[in-house]
């Protein structure tokens, strides 16, 4: 058993657990975005950062990937942590304002504005869809390509994947939008499953004021035909 302290509270957990899991065990809330139980932790969204160490050796690490260590002192809501979380949420709102998950997180932290140039992206590159497809569905139809600001998620060569089984799991886990497909040409779609799923945007008749950031989108194209 490994003994550590979270916010001053001693906790004893099994070796191999992460700090996030230990905090959950104690009931201490830590916000996450790219984490999902059952999938390997990735550490991409940085929302789950906590402060460890003392004085000038103190640093922020993502709790979802950091293994528990004997004698570790963790602070889940120090000034540094809160400052980082708030800026991260501002950046998220600046990129992906229409995601309900992100809106809820921002509201929970009292963030009401963002000061950057507004973008309307439908992907925050959290990688949940990639890991879902690879680890749960054992398919590997979608993945990351390129790097830095050009990084994106899609199929190899941007054509329909031969190994995609149309399960829709990628759409199911996506926190940014509930639509994983980013193509507007049906023949280039990752799969055609959106035609079968009940998505809010597919029922636009009752939602006149809803903002659709993909115009046209495959769901619309397919339902037209």
């Amino acid at each position, binding site marked *: 058993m490994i003994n550590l302290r979270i916010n001053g509270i001693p906790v004893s957990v099994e070796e191999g657990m992460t700090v996030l899991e230990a905090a959950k065990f104690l009931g201490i809330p830590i916000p996450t975005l790219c984490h999902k139980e059952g999938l390997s932790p990735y550490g991409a969204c940085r929302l789950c950062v906590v402060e460890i160490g003392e004085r000038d050796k103190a640093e922020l690490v993502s709790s979802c990937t950091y293994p528990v260590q004997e004698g570790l002192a963790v602070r889940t809501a120090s000034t540094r942590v809160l400052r980082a979380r708030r800026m991260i949420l501002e950046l998220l709102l600046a990129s992906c304002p229409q995601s309900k998950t992100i809106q809820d997180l921002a509201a929970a932290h009292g963030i009401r504005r963002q*000061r950057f140039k507004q973008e309307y992206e439908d992907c925050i590159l959290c990688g949940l869809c990639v890991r879902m497809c690879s680890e749960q569905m054992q398919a590997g139809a979608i993945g990351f390509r390129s*790097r830095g*600001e050009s990084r994106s998620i899609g199929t190899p060569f941007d054509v329909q994947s031969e190994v995609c089984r149309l399960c829709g799991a990628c759409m199911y886990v996506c926190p940014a939008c509930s639509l994983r497909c980013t193509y507007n040409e049906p023949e280039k779609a990752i799969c055609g499953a959106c035609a079968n799923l009940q998505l809010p945007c597919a029922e636009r008749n009752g939602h006149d004021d809803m903002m659709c950031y993909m115009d046209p989108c495959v769901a619309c194209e397919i339902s037209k035909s």
Partner: protein
Amino acid sequence: MQRLESVASLESLREPLVAQRRAERPTIVIPAGTCGRASGAERLIDAAKDALGAGRQNVRLRVTGCHGFCQMEPSVLVEPSRTFYPNVAPEDMRRIVAAAERGETLDDLLFQDPDTGRAVRCQDDLPFYAKQVRTLLSWNEQVDPTDIETYIGVGGYGGLAKVLRRGDPSWILEKIKSSGLRGRGGAGFPTGIKWELLAAQPNGRGKFVVCNADEGDPGAYMDRSLLEGNPHAVIEGMLIGACATAATEGIVYVRNEYPLAIEHLGIALKQAREAGLLGEEILGTEFSFNIVMVRGAGAFVCGEETALIRSIEGMPPEPRQRPPFPIQKGINGKPTGINNVETWANVPVIVEKGVRAFANVGTKKSPGTKIFSLVGKIKRTGLVEVPMGMTIAELIHDIGGGAVNGGTVKAVQTGGPSGGCIPAGFFHLPIDYDSLSEAGSIMGSGGLIVMDDRTCMVDVAKYFMRFLKDESCGKCFTCRKGTQRMYELLDDISAGRGDLEKLDLLRELALTVQDASMCGLGQTAANPVLSTLHYFHEEYVEHIENKRCPAGCCKPLITFSINENCKGCGACARACPEQAVSGRKGERHTIDPAKCIKCGACRNACKFDAVDVT
């Protein structure tokens, strides 16, 4: 090259080679690293071979790697007199060879010191070289990197022989630890301790030692010249490291943008294998070790340890969190020790010449020498090797000769995209790991970019953010989006679209990127922004409040014009790619602002300081 079956046979091979060198026959040494070739060294080599072919058996030719004074290339060094001829034309080669044979000097071809107006004959007396301590770079003058025998002839692989004769890994570890050698890649971690940790890892499953030759910092090319000029030093260093730590495999990860280094390393590895210095039962002992070269493919992030490991493993090089550390779990889960090229090259020196020879120079906490690339707006530019602890001022003024074109040195940028700018007011600081990080920068791999009053610090920060947002692996949200948004804000400021709130936002964002990113790239990405904001705040404010770029750099805020110094020579008009300059001969010219693309070609062409940038 015959296979050497024992340490004794290495020594018997060495003896006549050393004697040959001692005979001190006149030798024409031509530095032909990448810079040298870019300046035309190959034509010089051909001319030398021509001249020597005409029956001059007494004079020899040695083609080597970089000597460091790149702007003087193609140059010639004559041994043993150490006469230095800069910017040599192929037509002069016959004369040089003839003079070398007679032991004479050609005064008209010598280096003319612009400060004293006098000629300087001996390379070691040149102001550029005088204060250097060339522990490593001197080998670049002695060794032909494509011929292992030249390395052996100057004592090469003597350290390995010593180590194999003793057969005691703890002896090597003690030596490296007591030398105080610190990692030359930038972090400055004590090498002896790293090796000790690696040695302590369990054996039997395989263990790696890696040479990180990715050298991603733009403006730094020390590792390139070491690998091109003396690859055997790195090979020997890794062999000694493997003996000390029980490593079973070695990898050199070379940057793809260094084709000559790749070629020379390949030749060196082949020759070392043929000689039995790499492979099974090295020099007849039980020690077996091989080194494999892996080419990088153009990604700055691969300089980071965990990304480097993933790159070698054939995965997309996204860094991963530590713990576990590479020493415990590295390539394919095996213990892995990674060191920089310059670190490895220092190892044979310490083992063969002794701890004192290495640690006599430098400071107590940062012993030894460091190679720097002194580049940018400096008069004498190139590679220099100096003792740790030399002040920035000494380096810039005594060795570098101060600013170019009569400007004033404003700042020096160290540590590449992970580092910061140190303003001129702090040039009294010594160059060592701790002083530079206290000043808000880092030592980094050794790039020293000198900036003058025509360098805009806002533009410098923007430049580094443009670099980082492209090189970031993109996994961490704070690094990917943070570098992108910092670039956006800096672009706004440099184009006159900034306000003071944006400046505060920039600082806040920079601190978050520094705090919350996972790997070294993200954690240091904010340094260029934070250090320029700290030391050059007025320049930022000038861009914001007065929409003015004091350095005359940011295009949307500047105008080119011609002042009364103009003699009407027309050089600017001829240089202008847009025909934006007009005027009659002998009369003051004018620039048409509608056509002007602000490329600066006119200013470069003008000899009378008649082009203003406001």
